[in-house]
């Protein structure tokens, strides 16, 4: 069941373009430029060439032997997006959008960032193509992901601290939208997830689908069969959309999205937008949103800055309603345990975001037979999380 939005970006009742009128012409221009680029073999060839040469793709699909033994069931394979240039899947999308910006003649990039991975990936693409770059980041996130702030600045980007709201990803995106209105003529807004107004959700998914396309090919090469389950963490949902997309038509492959349960879903301090949210309109599209009964957006919580967001991409909402993807959740504590487990057992330090998916993969593998296969999207590496992890360890 591949999903395709209508011409206004609707995935069933979700998606669309809920943006200020000042931005609408830019969104329509972007939609046109993106469709023309994707139909141009020269553009897609250049994109894939850069994914090879600059990003370092294809990323390996690695059989995690000791983690598999610990789980005591199905074999666990890690899709090593952490080995990409800049250390996460985010670079796939920023290379795509930066090439598109260049094709459109834009000279400046701007982005919002939570964990800083998308900000670093945008700053990297800007340096690579000789463009200016401005990144909006909540103050709370700047503190807990300090290494990424320094990286962005080294790359020549200006990091703009956002002090509104909870000073996290939601507020960074609101502030980026405000800033974009004022510089929309010459600035390309690089959204980092499958969220925002059309065409971003479908465009970002298309730039990220390389993850799933490679994974499907690799698992068939390595095991001659498709996996029983593919597991990925879901904040806005770009790494999950990227790996799920290739498997949507494989009815026997269970697709599992892992939301951040934070301190526990029942505490209200979580980021489980699909499991606990209701349909709403936030940051340009209609999807599941954490909100109160009056339509005010609630503050999300997660130990991982990249999942700390009260919304989710509209295509995920459609997959959830259709029952094609199962959405589960993993708490801060479970993610931390998985972080340590993967680090000690495999010598791979995962991002806290990806650790949520690892926790669910281990849980699920344990319920399957030894001939089963679980693939987990290891969407990023955890160097950026040292302070959070060591801080938590000492409290």
């Amino acid at each position, binding site marked *: 069941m591949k999903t395709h939005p209508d011409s*206004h970006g609707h995935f069933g009742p979700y998606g*669309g*373009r*809920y*943006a*200020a*009128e*000042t*931005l*609408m*012409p*830019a969104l329509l221009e972007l939609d046109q430029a993106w469709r023309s680029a994707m139909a141009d073999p020269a553009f897609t060839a250049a994109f894939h060439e850069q994914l090879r040469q600059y990003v370092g793709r294809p990323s390996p699909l690695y059989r995690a032997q000791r983690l598999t033994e610990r789980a005591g069931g199905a074999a666990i394979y890690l899709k090593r997006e952490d080995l990409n240039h800049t250390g996460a899947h985010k670079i796939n999308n920023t290379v795509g959008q930066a090439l598109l910006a260049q094709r459109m003649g834009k000279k400046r990039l701007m982005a919002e960032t939570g964990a800083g991975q998308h900000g670093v990936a945008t700053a990297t693409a800007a340096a690579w193509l000789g463009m200016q770059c401005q990144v909006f980041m909540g103050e709370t996130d700047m503190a807990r992901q300090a290494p990424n702030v320094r990286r962005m600045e080294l790359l020549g980007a200006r990091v703009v601290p956002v002090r*509104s*709201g909870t000073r996290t990803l*939601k*507020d960074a995106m*609101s502030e980026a*939208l*405000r800033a974009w*209105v*004022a*510089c*929309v*003529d010459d600035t390309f807004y690089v959204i980092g997830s499958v969220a925002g107004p059309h065409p971003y959700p479908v465009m970002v998914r298309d730039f990220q689908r390389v993850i799933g396309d490679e994974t499907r090919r690799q698992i068939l090469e390595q095991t001659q069969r498709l996996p029983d389950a593919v597991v990925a963490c879901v904040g806005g949902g770009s790494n999950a959309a990227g790996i799920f997309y290739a498997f949507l038509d494989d009815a026997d492959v269970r697709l599992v999205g892992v939301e951040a349960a934070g301190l526990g879903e029942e505490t209200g301090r979580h980021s489980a937008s699909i499991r606990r949210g*209701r*349909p*709403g*309109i*936030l*940051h*340009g599209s*209609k999807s599941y*949103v954490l*909100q109160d*009964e*009056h*339509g*005010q*957006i609630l503050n999300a919580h997660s130990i991982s800055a990249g999942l700390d967001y009260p919304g989710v991409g509209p295509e995920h909402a459609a997959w959830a309603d259709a029952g094609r993807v199962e959405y589960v959740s993993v708490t801060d504590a479970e993610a931390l345990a998985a972080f340590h487990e993967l680090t000690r057992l495999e010598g791979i330090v995962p991002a806290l975001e990806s650790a949520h998916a690892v926790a669910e993969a281990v849980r699920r593998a344990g319920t399957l037979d030894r001939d089963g296969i679980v693939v987990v999207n290891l969407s990023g590496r955890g160097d950026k999380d040292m302070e959070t992890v060591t801080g938590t360890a000492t409290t």
Partner: protein
Amino acid sequence: MNRLTRAFETMASQGRKGLVGYLTAGDPNMAESERRMRDALDSGVDILEIGVPFSDPTADGPVIQAAALRALNMGATLSKTLDLIARLRQDCAQPIVLFGYANPFFRYGYDALARDAAQAGADGLLIVDIPFEERGEIAAALTKRNLANIPLVAPTSAPERVATILETASGFVYAITVKGVTGRRDDSLPDQAEQIRAIRACSALPVAAGFGIGQGTQAAQAAQTADAVVVGSALIEAAQAGRLADKVRELRTALDSLSSRRT
């Protein structure tokens, strides 16, 4: 006839320019916000634009963001905003429009919102983040209750797009004067003659210019081509400083001097 249409016709016949005053509902609390709104109407505001506070106001600058936050912290909601309108309507004759973001309206339900807003005595709705491509559902609900579906036209909207937007619009046209968020600016406004010409070329609706207008001189400049001006952040700042009536009178005087010069 809708109060908005009547108000603009009256102003036109008197050669007056309109003052649309924006205040956030529930800022700093519901009772004080009601007093401020009455104060504004008594001091010369022709049309009251009531902001429905939203947690993530992506088109608003710092002043209106802070107003929304104060209101929400004191428990403001869309329902309470509608109650406020009903109280004002008991003795205020001026048109009242709701200004807000999609999600509180969507959560309330478009049909229920149109029904309750009409019953409270509102005259129209302005929604910042529902462009005409997504307006079908809410526009139908508004039309059914004879509420104006007020469009926003931006400096970036091309003439063909303006024409399409205005096909289904009613009440008046809100012409955004600057590329940016709400909030007053100290510099002079960009020339919007061309933008307003494009609007007039395809619609007979009156035009109100807004965003960035805070001083009398700016109001007078914008009103040279527009039928009315919208002032928000400057009113909120004045209200915070206890000078709301003075601010409204300053704007009123600037607009009236312009009107009398022209007649």
